[in-house]
């Protein structure tokens, strides 16, 4: 009697697995349709975004950037910073860096240097994080170099009378010629 019970069990298990896989395939197909639509600049129903894969949100963030809705793009990318796939995480951080760098360049060209500096620092941080996840990410290397040329990093000049505690906590500064004594 055990043979048919095992076979009935397998039949049930197989049927449940077929249903589950079919449902997953449907979800993937929906997500891919959303990604393609967002890449063409078309808005997608919010219901398709909320429970979708992080790739869909990434596509949505890129659409926001194309439409110059930078705050929404940054907010969307920040939502998926902890994506489970490290390659995707690197991509998200790289795109985040690109938005910060783009904004920094715009501010620099508008001579708003004080507003540009923190943006470049954020861009560099995002590119470094992307490269820590994937050291072969050539576009991140290139854009990090762009950001580093925009705001070079230089070793801090230390003097004799500085306390060792301060030396330890502030080994370097990001801005050349920055008045000493500021945070």
């Amino acid at each position, binding site marked *: 009697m055990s043979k048919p019970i095992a076979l009935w069990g397998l039949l049930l298990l197989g049927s449940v697995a077929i249903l589950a896989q079919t449902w997953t395939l449907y979800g993937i197909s929906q997500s891919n349709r959303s990604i393609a639509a967002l890449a063409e600049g078309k808005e997608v129903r919010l219901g398709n975004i909320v429970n979708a*894969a992080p790739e869909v949100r990434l596509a949505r963030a*890129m659409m926001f950037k194309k439409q110059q809705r930078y705050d929404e793009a940054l907010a969307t990318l920040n939502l998926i910073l902890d994506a489970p796939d490290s390659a995707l995480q690197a991509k998200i951080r790289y795109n985040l860096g690109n938005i910060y760098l783009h904004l920094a360049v715009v501010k620099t060209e508008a001579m708003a240097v004080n507003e540009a500096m923190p943006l470049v620092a954020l861009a560099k941080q995002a590119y*470094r994080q992307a490269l820590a996840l994937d050291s072969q990410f050539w576009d991140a290397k290139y854009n990090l170099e762009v950001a580093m040329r925009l705001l070079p990093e230089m070793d801090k000049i230390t003097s004799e009378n500085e306390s060792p505690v301060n030396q330890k906590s502030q080994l370097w500064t990001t801005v050349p010629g920055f008045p000493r004594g500021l945070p």
Partner: protein
Amino acid sequence: MKAVMVIWLSLYLLACNTAPNTPVSDFEFLTPRPFGYINGDEIRHKIIIETRNGVQLQRGGLPKRGVVNRWLNLNNVAVSETKISGGFRYEINLTYQAFYAPLEVKMLTIPSFDLPLAQGGNNASQTVPAWHFTLSPLRELSIRKDESGQYMRPDAAPQLLGDDGVVYGLWAAMAVTLSSAGGLAYLYGYLPGLPKRRVFKKASKKLAGLSAAQTTEALTVFHQALNTVNGAPLFKHQLADFYRHYPSYQIADPQLVWFFNTSNQHFFSDAAQTQSATLATLRKLCATCLDIERGWQ
């Protein structure tokens, strides 16, 4: 000549005395090529150190993961320890990552550090030397611009989600489902072209439709079923041969013997039988044979 011998002996003894006192018997610092690096590249160093006299590496004194200096990060520190005769062998793998954007090819230095060693209350250290390498720029000095301003690499577009794994899973689930459905169809005798699997199923149906008075028909139906399975008419004295070909029916031997005795008595003797009891027992026997046919027994 005597003096020379004394000097050689003294030197030999000196060598014998000093060698075992050094805590490290072997030290190797394996580094990659020292040129051709660019911003964001990883650099892997391997340190092999063998100690003697039970001297151990103090892991707490190893460089920590994180920022080493303005342009250098230590991303990974992996240490493996194996016991060797008289001491330990350590393999230390360090993964650095350089973030530096030079204007021209520039020589940089990964700083030196000490590996702390200890044996009981005695401490020692082994210095890992500084390592020099050159790093090159990725872009030209002059600022290149495209129509959107400062030239930079474009955004990384999200890739479409892959469904290969899910499709394979679906095929596997379908294979399991179809196989189990096929197995069940075989067991229940629904597969065409396998008539023998349905012999006792048909017989059971026929027996279920007979009344207690139709003992002759019932016995005939079961005889026919046994003959079909055997491929030839089966008699009582052939049962041993039948079991050799169909060993699963061996467990029904007492009931089959009863069947042949009852049949002989019914067809060739005048003695009266309780007909309803015969039919009920025959149905039970047919159910047992049906279970055997389906592989349940």
